[in-house]
C-alpha cells in the first residue's frame, strides 16, 4: 500500500480544523469567529478536492503516514462512503457556521463572552474529529478520533453553564465513556487475536471464532451507546433540551454520524464474514423500536425543540435498517451493494435535513422567546421562510421524491424484496407516516390564526433563515445529485399520480396519528368537525401514548440503560455464535 496522488489532502482535511482550534485558542475572543469564517470555506474546498481526487483514483485515496506502511505504520484511507461523508459534513458545517453568526457572532464594540469563543472552537474540533473518523485506516486511531469527537461534543451541551445543562453534559460524557471503553476492549481483543489493528489487514485475517465474536459484540454495543440508538438514548433528549440550536444541529446532524459510520466500517470492512444475519436483524429491530417509540414520544412533546430531538431518536433508527438488507439471499455474508449506498445516502439526507430542522426550531425560539407547540399560532404569517424550512426538512425526511431519503428507501425496499425480508418493507413504509405526523402537528399549530396579530419579540437574521433553508432544500433534492453514482431510472416524476397518491396517503396517515396521539389535538376546521366523535378515541389512545412516554422514561434511567448496554453485548455475542452455525 502506497500513498496515492493527492493523498496529502486527507492530512489537510484533518489538520486544518485542529489548526483552527489551536490558533483560535491563542488569538481568543473576537478573532475566533473571523478565523472560523476563514477555515470553514477552506475546509469545504479541501472536501471538494478530495472528491475530485477520488474520482480520478482507482479505489481509495491513501496517505501512508511517514512512509511507514501498516502494520507498523498508520495509513489514512478515503473510500467511497468516506468521501461522500466528508463532503456532506463539510457542507453542513459551513451552513451551521453561517447560521451561528447571528447567535455567536460578536458585534463590534460588544463585550467578549466565553460561549462564542468556545462554540467556534468546538465546531472546528467536531469537524476535524469527524474527518479523522472518516479517513482513519486503523481501529486505534479510530478510538482516538471517537474520543476527540466526544470531548468536543460534550461541552456543546452546556454552553450556557446552567446547572441543568451541566448535568446533561456529565450524563452524556459518562455514558459515552462507558461506550468507548467497550469499544477499546474489543479493539484490544482483536489485536490479541490477530496482531494488527489495520482495517485492511484485519479483514484478511479475521475469522468467525470466539475472540472475533466477543470483539464484534463489545465494539458494536459500545458504538451504539455513542450513537444513541434506542434503548441506549439516555443522553440524547436532555442534551438537546438545554443546548442552543446551533449546538443541537451539530450534535444531532454531525456528532452521532461519527459513531454510526464506525459501526458501518466495523461490519462492512473489518468483519463482513464474522457478523451474522440474526445479529443484523437485532440491530435493525432496535432501529424499528427507535422509530416507533421515538416518533410517538415526539408527538407528545410540548416543546418544539424536544419534538425535533425525539424525532432524531427515530431517525437514528432508520440508519440501522440497512444492515440485514445488506446480506445476500443466502444470508451468509455482508455484501457491499445497494444497501450500503442507501445507508450512506440516508445519513447524508438526515444530516442535512435535521440540521435545517433544528435551525428552524431555534429561529422560532429566538423570535418568540419560547417554543411551546400550543402557542405557535400565527408563526406561519410572521416567519414564512422558517416555517417552509421546517416543513421542507420534514417532507425530505418522509422520503418524498426527489429527496435523498426517498432514494435510500427505494434502494432498501428493492433489497428487502430481493432477500425476501418483507417485514422491513412494513417498517420502511410505516416510518414515513410517523414523520408525517409531526410535520402535520407543527403545520397545524403554526397555521392557526392567533387572537391578536403575532409580533415577534426579536427579529431573526435573514442569513440564518437562508442557511437553514439551503440545507433543507439540499436534502430534498439529494436524489438528483446522487444519480451520478447510482445508475438506473430510480427517480420518478414527483408529480406523477402514483407518487402524489402515496404522498397524500402518508400525510393523511400522519394527520390521523398526530390527531390521536398528540398531547393537544391539532384543532382546525377538520378537528372541530370530528371533535365529539373523536373524543372517545382519544380517551382510548391517551394511555397508549402515556405508556410509550413511561417506557421511554424508564429506559433512560441510568441503571436500566447501563444494564441494557451489558445485556445487548451478551445478546449480540450470542447471536454471532448462534448465527454462524457453529
Amino acid at each position, binding site marked *: 500500500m502506497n500513498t496515492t496522488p493527492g493523498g496529502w489532502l486527507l492530512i489537510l482535511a484533518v489538520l486544518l480544523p485542529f489548526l483552527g482550534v489551536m490558533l483560535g485558542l491563542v488569538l481568543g475572543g473576537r478573532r475566533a469567529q473571523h478565523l472560523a469564517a476563514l477555515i470553514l470555506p477552506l475546509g469545504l474546498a479541501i472536501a471538494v478536492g478530495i472528491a475530485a481526487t477520488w474520482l480520478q483514483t482507482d479505489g481509495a485515496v491513501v496517505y501512508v503516514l511517514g512512509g511507514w506502511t501498516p502494520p507498523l505504520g498508520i495509513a489514512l484511507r478515503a473510500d467511497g462512503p468516506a468521501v461522500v461523508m466528508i463532503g456532506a459534513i463539510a457542507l453542513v458545517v459551513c451552513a451551521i457556521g453561517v447560521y451561528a453568526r447571528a447567535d455567536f457572532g460578536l458585534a463590534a464594540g460588544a463585550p467578549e463572552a466565553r460561549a462564542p469563543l468556545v462554540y467556534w472552537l468546538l465546531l472546528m474540533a467536531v469537524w476535524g474529529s469527524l474527518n479523522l473518523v472518516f479517513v482513519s485506516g486503523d481501529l486505534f486511531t479510530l478510538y482516538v478520533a471517537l474520543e476527540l469527537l466526544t470531548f468536543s461534543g460534550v461541552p456543546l451541551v452546556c454552553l450556557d453553564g446552567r446547572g441543568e445543562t*451541566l448535568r446533561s453534559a456529565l450524563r452524556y*460524557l*459518562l455514558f459515552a*465513556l462507558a461506550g468507548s*471503553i467497550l469499544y477499546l*476492549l474489543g479493539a*484490544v481483543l482483536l489485536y490479541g487475536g490477530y496482531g494488527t489493528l489495520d482495517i485492511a489487514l484485519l479483514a484478511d485475517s479475521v475469522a468467525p471464532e470466539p475472540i472475533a465474536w466477543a470483539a464484534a459484540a463489545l465494539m458494536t454495543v459500545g458504538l451504539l451507546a455513542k450513537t444513541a440508538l434506542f434503548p441506549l438514548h439516555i443522553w440524547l433528549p*436532555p442534551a438537546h433540551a438545554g443546548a442552543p440550536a446551533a449546538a443541537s444541529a451539530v450534535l444531532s446532524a454531525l456528532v452521532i454520524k461519527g459513531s454510526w459510520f464506525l459501526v458501518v466500517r466495523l461490519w462492512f470492512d473489518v468483519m463482513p464474514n464474522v457478523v451474522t444475519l440474526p445479529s443484523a436483524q437485532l440491530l435493525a429491530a432496535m432501529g424499528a423500536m427507535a422509530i416507533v417509540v421515538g416518533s410517538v414520544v415526539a408527538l407528545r412533546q410540548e416543546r418544539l425543540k424536544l419534538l425535533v430531538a425525539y424525532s432524531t431518536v427515530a431517525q437514528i433508527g432508520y440508519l440501522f435498517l440497512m444492515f440485514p438488507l445488506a446480506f445476500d439471499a443466502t444470508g451468509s455474508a455482508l455484501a457491499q451493494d445497494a444497501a450500503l449506498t442507501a445507508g450512506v445516502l440516508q445519513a447524508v439526507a438526515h444530516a442535512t435535513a435535521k440540521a435545517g430542522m433544528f435551525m428552524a426550531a431555534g429561529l422560532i425560539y429566538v423570535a418568540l422567546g419560547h417554543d411551546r407547540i400550543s402557542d405557535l399560532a400565527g408563526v406561519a404569517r410572521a416567519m414564512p421562510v422558517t416555517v417552509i424550512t421546517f416543513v421542507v426538512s420534514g417532507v425530505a425526511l418522509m422520503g418524498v421524491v426527489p429527496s435523498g431519503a426517498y432514494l435510500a428507501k427505494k434502494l432498501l425496499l428493492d433489497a428487502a424484496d430481493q432477500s425476501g425480508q418483507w417485514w422491513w418493507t412494513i417498517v420502511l413504509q410505516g416510518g414515513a407516516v410517523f414523520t408525517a405526523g409531526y410535520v402535520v402537528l407543527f403545520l397545524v399549530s403554526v397555521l392557526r390564526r392567533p387572537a391578536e396579530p403575532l409580533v415577534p419579540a426579536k427579529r431573526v437574521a435573514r442569513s440564518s433563515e437562508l442557511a437553514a433553508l439551503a440545507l433543507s432544500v439540499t436534502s430534498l433534492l439529494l436524489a438528483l445529485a446522487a444519480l451520478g453514482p447510482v445508475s438506473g431510472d430510480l427517480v420518478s416524476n414527483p408529480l406523477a399520480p402514483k407518487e402524489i397518491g402515496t404522498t397524500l396517503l402518508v400525510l393523511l396517515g400522519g394527520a390521523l396519528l398526530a390527531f390521536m396521539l398528540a398531547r393537544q389535538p391539532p384543532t382546525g376546521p377538520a378537528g372541530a368537525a370530528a371533535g365529539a366523535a373523536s373524543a372517545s378515541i382519544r380517551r382510548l389512545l391517551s394511555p397508549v401514548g402515556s405508556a410509550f412516554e413511561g417506557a421511554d422514561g424508564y429506559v433512560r434511567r441510568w441503571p436500566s440503560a447501563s444494564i441494557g448496554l451489558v445485556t445487548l453485548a451478551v445478546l449480540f455475542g450470542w447471536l454471532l455464535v448462534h448465527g454462524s452455525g457453529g
Partner: protein
Amino acid sequence: MSDATAFGLCASALIGLGLYGLIVNPQPLRKILAFNVIGSGVFMLFGAIARRGAAAGMGGDPVPQALLITGIVVAFSATALAVALLLRLHAATGTATLATDPPPPAPDRDA
C-alpha cells in the same frame, strides 16, 4: 499458569468490578472512578497481550505499549473533563447528582 494468563485474569476481574461500579453507584464521582477501574483492566489486558506476543528476543511486543501510552493519555483527559464538569455542576447547583429519574410526564390536558 503463565504470567500472561495471570495478568489476563486480573484484568478481567478489574473490568468486571468496574462495570459493576459503573452500573450500581449513583454518585457521578464513583462512576468516574469505576470508569478508571475498567480502563486499568483494559490496559492491563493489553499489557498481557504485549507480553504474550514477545518474539525475536524482545521482552514484549512494542506496538501495544505505544498504544497503551496513548490510551492512558485519552483516559486521563476524559477523567479530567468529567471531574471539571462535576466541579462546575457542584458550583452551579450545590449538588453533585445525576438525578437519574426524569420528572413524570405531565397529565393530558384534555383527558
